[in-house]
């Protein structure tokens, strides 16, 4: 029987665990989001992400969805070519705002109904997702990391690099479809 397990061997959580979904379903889910926020972590420039073309993927997602980008400030520079709404943030204090139901978003137009995470160290992202899971259980969170994140609401399974890279492509295709 297949079983979704967190990548980090000690990162077992429960009983509220992320649903694993396919990249295609990720794409469809993103499409349905009303106000999508993409949280880009400080490790998005690490080799794996670069090799998978994550920045380009994100660019396409943003184009399709008009998502707002919250970018971990240390890597903000790499996003200069992104023209849409983007903000350099400290991810922790962004999450602090996200868990506050009264926060009206960067543009003051209201909260975000769907948060997509990518690009942080596994334990760091895991903890941010945990904060939202516990203290803002109504916020929908999705991670498109290569590794399963039990603290998200939705997550990919643990994938080989190739399957993940191809999955990101499939995700965007499904979104663009």
């Amino acid at each position, binding site marked *: 029987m297949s079983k979704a397990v967190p990548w980090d061997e000690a990162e077992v959580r429960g009983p509220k665990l992320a649903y694993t979904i396919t990249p295609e379903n990720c794409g469809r889910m993103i499409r349905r989001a009303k106000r999508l926020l993409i949280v880009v972590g400080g490790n998005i420039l690490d080799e794996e992400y670069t090799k998978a073309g994550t920045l380009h993927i994100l660019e396409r997602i943003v184009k399709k969805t008009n998502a707002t980008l919250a970018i*971990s400030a240390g890597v903000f*520079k790499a996003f200069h070519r992104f023209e849409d709404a983007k903000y350099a943030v400290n991810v922790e*204090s962004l999450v602090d705002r996200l868990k506050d139901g009264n926060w009206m978003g960067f543009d003051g137009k209201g909260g975000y109904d769907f948060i997509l995470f990518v690009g942080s160290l596994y334990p760091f992202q895991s903890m941010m997702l945990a904060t939202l899971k516990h203290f803002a259980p109504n916020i929908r969170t999705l991670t498109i990391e290569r590794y399963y994140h039990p603290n998200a609401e939705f997550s990919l399974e643990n994938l080989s690099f190739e399957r993940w890279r191809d999955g990101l492509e499939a995700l965007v295709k499904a979104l663009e479809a």
Partner: protein
Amino acid sequence: MVTKINIKELTSSHLKIKGLELTVGRFVESEDWAEPMGPTPYPTIMDLREWDLKLLKRYQPFYSPLSDFCEFCTFGKCDLTAGKRGACGIDMAGHIGKWSLLQSVMGASAHTTHAHHLLNFLIKQYGGDQPIDLGSEVEIEAPITRLITGIKPKKLSDLIDVVNYLEGQITHLLSATATGQEQNYLDYESKALHAGMLDILALEVADIAQISALGFPKGDAETPLIEVGMGVVEREKPVILCIGHNVAPGSEVINYLDETGLYGQIEVAGVCCTASDLARFSKGAKIVGPISRQLRFIRMGIADVVIVDQECVRADVIEEAVKVGSRVIATSDQLVGGLPNLTNMDEDTIVQKLASGDAKAVVIQDPVKVGRVAVKAAQLIAPLRANQKGYDKDKVLAKASLCSLCLSCTKNCPIGINVGLAVNTAKRGDPSLLLEVFDECLGCGRCDSSCPNDVPVLTVVDAASEDKIKRERFKIRAGRGPIKDTEIRNVGRPIVMGEIPGVVVFAGCANYPGGNNHLAMMADEFAKRRYIVVTSGCAALDIARYKDENGQTLYEKYPGDFDAGCIVNLGPCVSNAHAVGAVVKIASIFAKRNLRGNFEEIADYILNRIGAVAIAWGSQHQKAMSIATGANRFGIPVILGPQGVKHRRAYLGRSEDYGRWLVYNAKDGQLVYGGPSPEHLLCVVETPEEAMVMASKMVMRPNDTPKGRMIKISNYVSLHRQLYGCLPEDLHLFVRDENDLPVTIKEEVLQIIKQRGWKPIEIPDPTLLSRMVMGGR
């Protein structure tokens, strides 16, 4: 009779149980200390709670649960996910608040016990009358002690009171973590802040005691340059390795070498804080490195005798050392390791037992005896162990062939290094990835024990990196201890006025991704920008493990005096007290605020006026957390690296939340907007870039003069542009009026921020304490 009178006094005139001792303490020095007593000498849990609640209202606890459960009692484990409560009624916020307190009080207890042990030893060796003497240029010898307890310690025995106070408070705080006690996360945090403050006090007690008695540097800017690195130990000589935080056994080794004229013939090296302390004691002592070097150096088998004392000792040290034929002496009741206690055995018999291998690891709880036994044993053992020193590289690398690329090691690596791939690539003949791993690896060994095929993963990494290890030779300035009063007089004004953009402290352990160079890079940047850069503990050692293009370490590149553009190594972790102490002394010496028993006023002063910030890039332990929390209670913000998120708690401000940033204007008592400065008290960042920009922002204070704010903004903007490639979005929050803006960017910025509705505000004389209004003290 005499005694009876004392008891009488105690029971009739003092409500606190500490009464008797306090009476003694105060009575003694009140003779020549004119400073009036402030409102909170020896503060109890409730005495500073109002201050904490002020801080916690502005900087709210932010919790990241590391587990979804509580398993503290047999009603559990209880699932506390998303609003569920445990069988004792607690919810997740309460539980993590409790954890936060527990962590802090564990940390504070470790430093208090350290101080207690040291004090016992020093009083025994040097007498309780040994004066507390930090040198002629340090008149405020114990700023933290004066501030918190209201006493002015003149000799070692005066510190006994302080230790008793610490132990009483710690017990009370710990008590509140038991199931069925405190229930509110804010009060758990208030107690955690109390624990943190106590920790800082314990650090000071420990360090001023040892500096006074052992002749450590007393604030010298030019301490000797000491060798640091795994490559500096001469393995041909008998080698004694000291691990931990308590200098006494190690210093007694050196004393004995001195006495017997053996000095120089035997290597004395250390890892972690004991190393830093030995370097203060003797410039011949060598430093192997921070905690990331502990396991690997032991495994190399270079040490003939390993002395462990207390704190930051790996739990596998004894086993691993014995495995490679080293002998171990455990010296502290904090760490006895299941070993036989030979403290009362005849010295030469112990030496024989160790040499013969009859006893490979023993307890000796007498530093003087340890010194003698270690030296004698090392001399006997070293010749027998000559061929056990260093790895058999080929043999070790051959073990990579067992690897099945299961990646269990990778999945267990705390920082996600793909060490499994590196091993497997080596198996296929290419060790290059192992060399890359070496640079980032924390040396924690989790990969090893998780390998189902028994590949000794870490050893494989290190054996492949033999040459790198040999080349690990750096220079560090020995810890200088306190900051001199004269230095404070020089920099007090420019710091408070903001002309020196800030004090940046690099402290804490070595638990971070990306290797140690990030630390050096950050320190370099701030020194270059003429901040006052201060460092301590493992961070100080990790900063040393980097050379610039000229082959210099930062300690060689920058001066060691407490002034703009310096790199000051305070010393080991206990020396962190001097960082806080320096800030406190600014309030006292520059601003002439009374210290004595006057915690709130000084913390309020620091929070609103002194641009100090600490970066604990690799914060690991409970102790690291309690020090950070302590700094926070003093009004000093702390930035943690990404692994710090696993402390589970931050104290975050919300810059746009106007109400949080109101301060009293001391001039007229009006509540006015002071701006989000500092923005957070404790926050986690992901990258060194973010740490740097954050630090440059967090040194701003409501009280900055226009010129000072201008310099701070100038650095903030310049770092922001350099590292993020743009102007800060939140710049308008820090510009109080046009004069705050550097000319070079004034026009550009003004235009932008005016579009955002920016309006100038007045610079207040800021305080959070209503009683400070109108200059009232």
